[in-house]
């Protein structure tokens, strides 16, 4: 038991969905628990093992001064830091504040914004520390999480594709919805989800963030030809992964 690698699961600003993904690995969870020691995972346990930890999974983005400090500490005390989810890898949906005035935002929501301690921006951990592995997705894929844990435990390279959602769409033989007339972000979005949206006759909305070398300009042009407005393009690129550079730059091309 003592020899098992320790894993700590940290929450930053997030919806908890990515860490829930771990508990959602119903078939694998007990097996995983046999291979690792959970050192810190408040969503699941009161127990705690002090650092250093072999692996830290970090969920959520950095939105407060405390969080900006905490991630540095975690980095120092962790062998590997794996950022999980759109919040941790791109700032998440809450990064929409990065285009707005946070004070104004706070006053819309809270009667006493002065009680809040919050940063102007919501940023991914890679803006603050070195990250060993990023799993994109809002939320991350269960299969990728299990694979990444196994890979880390066995010194294997995690099977994280950097290619487009289209690869998975084609492998599952879904007729392309974009060609059938529904705008789809799949060609610029990183695979991993299994191409869920097109299989439900819906265009991908980019929740896995940009793929490598995403040609957003060309896709946006095609969307316009298909009738998308500039506003629609701006919003499409500025959602869950809107602060990731490739999407950020593309949304800027459509105003705002």
């Amino acid at each position: 038991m003592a020899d098992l690698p320790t894993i700590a699961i940290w929450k930053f600003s997030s919806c908890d969905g990515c860490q829930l993904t771990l508990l959602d690995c119903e078939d694998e969870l007990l097996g995983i628990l046999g291979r690792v020691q959970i050192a810190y995972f408040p969503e699941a346990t009161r127990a705690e093992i002090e650092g250093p930890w072999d692996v830290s999974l970090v969920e959520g983005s950095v939105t407060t001064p405390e969080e900006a400090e905490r991630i540095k500490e975690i980095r120092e005390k962790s062998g590997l830091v794996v950022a999980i989810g759109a919040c941790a890898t791109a700032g998440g949906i809450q990064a929409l504040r990065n285009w707005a005035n946070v004070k104004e935002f706070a006053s819309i929501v809270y009667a006493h914004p002065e009680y809040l301690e919050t940063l102007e921006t919501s940023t991914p951990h890679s803006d603050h520390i070195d990250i060993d592995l990023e799993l994109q997705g809002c939320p991350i894929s269960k299969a990728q999480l299990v694979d990444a844990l196994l890979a880390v435990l066995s010194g294997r390279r995690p099977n994280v594709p950097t290619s487009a959602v289209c690869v998975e769409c084609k492998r599952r033989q879904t007729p392309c919805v974009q060609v059938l007339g529904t705008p789809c972000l799949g060609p610029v979005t990183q695979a991993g989800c299994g191409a869920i949206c097109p299989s439900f006759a819906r265009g991908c909305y980019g929740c896995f963030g940009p793929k490598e070398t995403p040609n957003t300009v060309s896709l946006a042009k095609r969307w316009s030809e298909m009738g998308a407005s500039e506003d629609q393009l701006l919003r499409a690129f500025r959602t869950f992964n809107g602060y990731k550079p490739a999407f950020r730059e593309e949304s800027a091309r459509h105003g705002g």
Partner: protein
Amino acid sequence: MADETRTIKTDYLARVEGEGGMLIRLKGNAIEEVKLNIFEPPRFFEAFLRGRYFTEAPDITARICGICPVAYQTAAINSMESICGVKVEDQIRQLRRLLYCGEWIESHALHIYMLHAPDFLGYPSAIEIAKDAPEVVETALRLKKIGNHIMTVVGGREIHPINVKVGGFYKAPSKAELEAMVPDLEWALETSLETVKWANTLDFPDFEMDYEFAALDAGGVYPIEGGERFVSNRGLDIPIDEFYEHVVEEHVKHANALQGHLKERGSFLVGPLARYALWYDLLSDEARGAAEGVGLGKVVKNPFKSIIVRSVELVEACVEALRIIREYEQPAEPAIEVKPKAGAACGASEAPRGTLCHRYEIDANGIILDATITPPTAQNQPQIEADLRGFVGQFMDLPNEELTLRCEQAIRNYDPCISCATHFLTLEIERG
């Protein structure tokens, strides 16, 4: 001893969703302070929803909470459909209810066995339970999985489903796809019935509170995916559109969340205990039978027994899921087209943790002008603090460590969802 100051404190509450802590200060036998600290950072959903397109609300608000995304999606949809004046056909509504049953099954199973049970069984977590009694955890995981599977088949995936939209679904599942889940659900139903019995064997402190129970009125069915009115056992009975005329919220210093009160009477309670107390008669025969079988009574005032009530609701969700699948006919069109209309309306649904209310105002182009979201935990927060006061008052003699544990348990009774609690708003209320 008399004037000694004691502090009962948990910096970071475990096995709840989101980031919160608890602080209780006693001076002698007097309670000086009870605080449920919520330091979950604010994410400003209501603010950045402004300017987004109305059809985006379900996808965006799902991200408020990874544990009950369907609750958010459904409340948002209910609100938008109400603004735009559309009513979906019953088949679509049933499909939504089925999806929601999936979320209830997943969330309740998770809470009962993995978040709440460790308190009763004396373990720090289900991980340790798994070492001594793996079958308990295996049961939990299998139940959870069945709930998740419903969400995957109907919604596309379990966390942040993608198939839900204003007006219906992107694609309706075939009857065969749903029927394939029946054997699993039958197992889940059996297991939930056992769960009720098992939960009833746990040890409960002798503690009751006199709650004002509030929940949606779904017009003759147990409230899950929506309801036109918001009612309580003390006479509250309002159309959901008047929610914010009665529920006021306050921003207190120790919480990045706003606390909800009933304007008329102060704290109130939403969630399984409330739904159960108000709508006991609408439960299925199986669920009611299970409650009767363990002598639960029509109203449960001991919050620690919420684990039994949650188990009864687990039964209810399985029964409902099976019923819907049995009666399902794939709709000709998975959705109706919804054109934006300027206006404002509230929409609500019964999250596993209680009533969740959204209110939006949109313009004629479908752009969101204003958004207000009040999750159940925010409504319950004053009540949680009230429970703690009551509980500490009664069990003051326990040693610190045990008292802390018990207080934590008292909080976990509510299955609080702190990530949710940090988003809701006030603007209108202050004006109102």
